[in-house]
């Protein structure tokens, strides 16, 4: 099992998690297929991969929003999917999600003050209207908005402001673990940096643990301690952030990293891109063997037949590839 030795006492421990969706006619979409990782307290795990590779599903299954197909998700040693009643409510208080789409994830009929304090009301953490207003204004200031924004409706805000409101809502109930489900992909670049910095600041202040789902590699590097690269529902490489960016081993990771533009025209001109040919195979009927073999230029016969296991190739460096020894 990968990642076991990296951190002691993980906050979140995911073991061989599988999430399949039935597609009718006996077809099964394997969105998340045998994924394992761990996140230690106060750490951030970046989860990257291209669109449709199962990142969001993985995040949502970890927070119990989706039921699992098999495997287990342990939050501080408790199985997330077996929690009921009181335990489940306590769990929802310590785990939060920041959603990808700041437009759809905020109820258009609620005022900002009601939105950010909803969790407080659910968990009976405030008693009256006055307290609600005070907490709302406090939270808005915390994420860099103004207190008078509290009485507005959500359509009066820009994308970046809305995402801040989403973050304020997630922080309101003082969770320990936050799944950031592509919190920056709907925003433009200048605001992305602000939001990522805000998240880092909050992490330092409140000792938060993040699962940071994204497809923007440069932002992930900025925020993550560890990075897991996902391809078609499987993690292909898992290592520390620095190691991944300096020594990518899996051919897919190498291709991904080569696609990051460099903000220096001279270097950028010389940058060698590894262009992947072909499309991502359908997750409904993934090829046997290595998931990446159809697009891998190094693929051997073994790759087409045998599924690679996660192997440890260095300290805190795990990769699923037959070619890496």
């Amino acid at each position, binding site marked *: 099992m990968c990642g076991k030795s990296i951190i002691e006492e993980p906050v979140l421990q995911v073991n061989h998690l599988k999430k399949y969706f039935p597609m009718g006619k006996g077809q099964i979409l394997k969105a998340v297929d045998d994924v394992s990782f761990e996140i230690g307290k106060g750490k951030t795990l970046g989860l990257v991969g291209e669109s449709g590779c199962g990142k969001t599903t993985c995040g949502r299954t970890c927070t119990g*929003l989706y039921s699992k197909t098999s495997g287990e998700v342990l939050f501080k040693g408790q199985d997330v999917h077996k929690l009921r009643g009181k335990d489940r409510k306590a769990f929802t208080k310590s785990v939060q*999600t920041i959603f990808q789409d700041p437009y759809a994830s905020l109820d258009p009929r609620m005022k900002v003050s009601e939105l950010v304090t909803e*969790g407080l009301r659910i968990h009976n953490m405030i008693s009256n209207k006055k307290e609600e207003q005070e907490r709302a204004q406090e939270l808005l200031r915390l994420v860099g908005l103004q207190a*008078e924004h509290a*009485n507005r409706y959500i*359509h009066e805000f820009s994308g970046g402001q809305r995402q801040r409101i989403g973050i304020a809502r997630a922080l309101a109930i003082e969770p320990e673990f936050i799944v950031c489900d592509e919190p920056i992909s709907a925003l433009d670049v200048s605001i992305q940096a602000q939001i990522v910095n805000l998240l880092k600041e909050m992490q330092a202040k409140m000792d938060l643990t993040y699962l940071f789902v994204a497809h923007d590699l440069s932002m992930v590097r900025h925020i993550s301690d560890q990075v897991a690269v996902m391809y078609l529902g499987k993690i292909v490489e898992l290592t520390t952030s620095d190691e991944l960016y300096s020594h990518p081993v899996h051919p897919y990771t190498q291709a991904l990293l080569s696609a990051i533009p460099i903000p220096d025209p001279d270097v950028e001109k010389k940058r060698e891109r590894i262009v992947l040919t072909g499309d991502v195979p359908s997750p409904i009927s993934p090829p046997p063997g290595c998931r990446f073999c159809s697009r891998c230029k190094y693929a051997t016969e073994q790759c087409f037949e045998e599924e690679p296991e996660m192997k440890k190739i260095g300290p805190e460096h795990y990769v699923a590839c037959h070619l890496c020894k």
Partner: protein
Amino acid sequence: MNPEHNEIVRDEVLKEDAFMPIETKHKEDDVLRDRGIWYNLLTSFKENKLAMFCLCFLIIIIIASILAPLSPHDPDKMDLLNKLAPMSKEHFLGTDGLGRDYFTRALYGGRVSLVVGLFSMMVAIVFGTLYGTISGYIGGTVDNLMMRAADIFMSVPSFLLIIIINSLLSPSMTTMIVIIGMFSWMGVARIVRAETMSLKERDFVLVAKNLGAGSFRIIFNHIIPNMIPSIIVAASISIARAILTESSLSFLGFGVQLPMSSWGSMLQSAQEHIMDVPSLALYPGLLILLTVLSFNVLGDVLRNALEPKLVK
């Protein structure tokens, strides 16, 4: 020019507010004004003359029916010597075939029509909304069964059934309200169910679940508030329809019983005299028409006013 003079000129200009950009002025207003529902309603009515007219008309009708007992005439007192009297000072709209004051009868009739319309709308909206949300939220087999049951209700020729039930039960306003409500919730339930199906998959509902909200909270705090515009439109159509159904029932003699009046029963008794005194049919007809029309127009305005996105 000395510098002191310059200063004075600048001060004057500043006082006049001329340099303050118009946009910032607007923004200040924005912060200050209350963005509640009432504010939205007020602006919508100010902008829409027709809506204003309809609102005034309904308010007048409602107040007049409430104050009906103030009329000097007894609505049921017959005066055969004075029948079919034309308009006069004493009888504002003349008298009917039995010499009863037509204006007073119209006021009392308005009470019946409005009460039946309002309450059967409420029965239909409350039941239809709950039925639709539950059906849509649970989904699956339960949804299927519940919607087929609604379909059965829908495919029954309701008017005929209302007449049969009404003739079996002792006709009173309460039975009429319940029966009309009973046969008009299906449309509401259908609209509500469809909206629920789409709303429950929205991200903000997922967020609420993630925050630990139960189904009850999600339905009442997120799903129903987001359906209010559709519910209001359904309500306005429903109230208009209920008034029409009540009128038709009373016209056919299955509604309120004599000597009580309603606009429908007034139309019915006006039939005998339609050739000599057509105005007897005109007044209740006009009242029904304008009331129903007003409710329909108001429904539209309310829907727009309750949509926070449409605030100007």
